[in-house]
């Protein structure tokens, strides 16, 4: 569906996107992940022709971006906003017609989506009268109401309560089943892990990891041990044979180097902690992410790309 190859974008002196390639097929959700400022948003803007790449090619079913491609794409930007003083239904009809819909058709579809999100009673209200979460649902509607073949969702879950998160997840699954190609950008790894079939991890403008989630995990699938325990686990990261460790209050993920047996480790741990759960697993996307991005905590990533044109 979409193939982007060797994208490159430079803002004055900063290389925001450096030789990024990615692709997504019909019925597939691609997780575009990376720390803040990694170049995710810039990559998305390049793909959607909002800004032009300095190098690289972008093809939709073999065709470069043009008006008919624009009509078949939907976009939920990370930074949300709608016309505050305008009626919801008017805004949606306008954005629909900009995607090539006829006004009547756009109105019908918009009303159907409002119903689905239980927002029908707000149709004639102004956007500014709505809560943030509801505004977000409206904006999501604007991204998908014209039945696009290709959808880009930048952090679609942020700001939604758990009930609405479940609703949105259901809709995402539906969209996938309808055969849409979806790019889902996030820095919440758990969401990406649950929803995505493919992962493209970007850091500092470069693709660091790319492939199906299963393959990626397999590639990093060393001995990972997940434990739940009671007691002071602070020593866990210094246990011999542990390559890296994520230690929380009563949960830990230990990446064991080759050659250290799980049984041996368990024996040792039992002496110092009260173990509630001990399992050998593939690494979580989260730990792969931390491994690849160099353990940079959330929000402390290099602010290179998004400063320029973000």
């Amino acid at each position, binding site marked *: 569906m979409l193939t982007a190859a060797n994208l490159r974008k430079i803002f004055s002196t900063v290389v925001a996107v450096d030789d990024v390639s990615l692709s997504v097929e019909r019925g597939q959700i691609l997780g575009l992940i990376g720390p803040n400022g990694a170049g995710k948003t810039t990559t998305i*803007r390049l793909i*959607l*022709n*909002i*800004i*032009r790449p300095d190098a690289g090619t972008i093809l939709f079913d073999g065709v470069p971006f043009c*008006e008919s491609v*624009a*009509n078949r*794409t939907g*976009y939920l*930007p990370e*930074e*949300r*906003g*709608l*016309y*505050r*003083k*305008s009626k919801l239904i*008017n805004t949606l009809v*306008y*954005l629909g*017609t*900009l*995607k*090539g819909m006829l006004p009547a058709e756009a109105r019908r579809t918009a009303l159907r989506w409002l119903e689905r999100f239980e927002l029908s009673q707000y149709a004639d209200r102004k956007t500014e009268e709505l809560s943030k979460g509801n505004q977000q649902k409206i904006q999501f509607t*604007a*991204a998908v109401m014209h039945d696009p073949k290709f959808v880009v969702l930048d952090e679609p879950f942020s700001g939604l309560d758990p009930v609405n998160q479940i609703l949105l997840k259901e809709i995402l699954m539906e969209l996938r089943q309808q055969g849409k190609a979806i790019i889902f950008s996030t820095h919440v790894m758990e969401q990406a892990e649950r929803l995505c079939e493919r992962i493209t991890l970007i850091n500092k403008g470069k693709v660091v990891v790319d492939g199906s989630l299963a393959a990626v995990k397999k590639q990093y699938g060393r001995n990972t041990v997940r434990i739940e325990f009671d007691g002071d686990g602070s020593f866990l990261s210094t246990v011999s044979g542990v390559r890296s460790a994520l230690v929380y209050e009563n949960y830990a993920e230990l990446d064991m180097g080759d050659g250290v047996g799980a049984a041996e480790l368990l024996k040792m741990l039992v002496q110092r902690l009260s173990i509630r759960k001990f399992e050998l697993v593939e690494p979580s996307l989260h730990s792969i992410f931390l491994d690849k991005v160099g353990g940079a905590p959330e929000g402390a990533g290099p602010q290179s790309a998004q400063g320029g*044109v*973000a």
Partner: protein
Amino acid sequence: MKKAFAVARWEYMEKIKSKAFLISLILMPIIMIGFGVLPTLLASQADTEPRIIGVIDATGQLFDALRSRVETRYKLPDGQPNYVLRLVGEREELEVAKKQADRLVVHGDLEGYLIIATTVFQDSVAEYRAKNVGNLRVVERFTATLRDIVFERRLQEAGVNPGLVTALRTKLELRTVKVTAKGIEEAGFEQVFFSAYLFMMMMFFLVATSGQLLVRSVVEEKANRVVEILVSSCSPTDLMAGKILGLSGLGLTQVSVWALIGVVISLKFGIALASLDVVLLLLIYLILGYLFYAAIFVAAGSPISTEQEAQQITSYLVLVLVLPLVLALSVLQNPESTMVKVLSLIPLLTPTMMAIRIPVLMPSTAEIVASILILAASTLVAMWAAGRIFRTAILAYGKRPSIGEIIRLLKTAN
């Protein structure tokens, strides 16, 4: 292009329903009429009570004549005399009389007083003293009346019959007739000035209002980030064209309503408006000029991201438009001067300069063709440059590009 119309429709429909638009639609004519009518109305407002004016007549022979003439000439609306004259001093010591009269003025018993010295027949000088000497009407009326009386006395002394002089002396009226290629038409200064002024104001308001709306709509979309969705849905060219189209529609709606009011008023007062060919020619300038300004507004507005900055930049641009308004009177007096001709060729000024010049005195064909060509070419260049700047600048939030960056933007092939 279909999407440009969708954008235009949206801009037009959303703005026309806004309270700000309705308010300016109604308020503007009221303010305009207020500016035009109120000062004259206030100045020409009649008194409601007689004013008491004192007179110190050192000649001892003019007071009665002055009183009867002033009282019969100037009446209040209810028929009473407008001025009641009181003799406050005659031949006695002048200084004493003055002091006494000054006191009366300060107490408010007198509006003011006239001092007619014995020398008035020789040097024709009298004096008016009052708290308010800015009341031009009183000064003007008493000057006229006193002049007539003194003049008649002199005629009598010279042995001439004053009645005969009055009968022989008639006022002369200068009728003004405008000569054009098609013949002659009667048009006074007011008429010519009025239609020139009307067109200029229309041009001004069209640009000022829709230009401002244009900048603000761009700034709003940047602030609420809708711009990203828009640019991924339609080309920036469509977006820009749609905005200009929609908001000029809005401006035209507004101006049409005002023009209608203007036409009704001028018909009512019998003021002749310009002929059709003049209107058509002015329309060309109006449309080209509007597009030229719109491009400048877009170029200036797209790198901006806050309302405050938008306000600033639009008010500067509007100032340029006001310049011909300031020059209007001198242009009317001398529409053929080199200075005026040169100014008319500067695209920023062309539309308004021509709006003043054409109703007054049709410029030469060469001048009209040259100015239209220059304006059209500048409009094309401005549109092209604005499109370039718009395309990149609308996505630049927060930081304003420097002049250097804008030049670089224009150079890079996109």
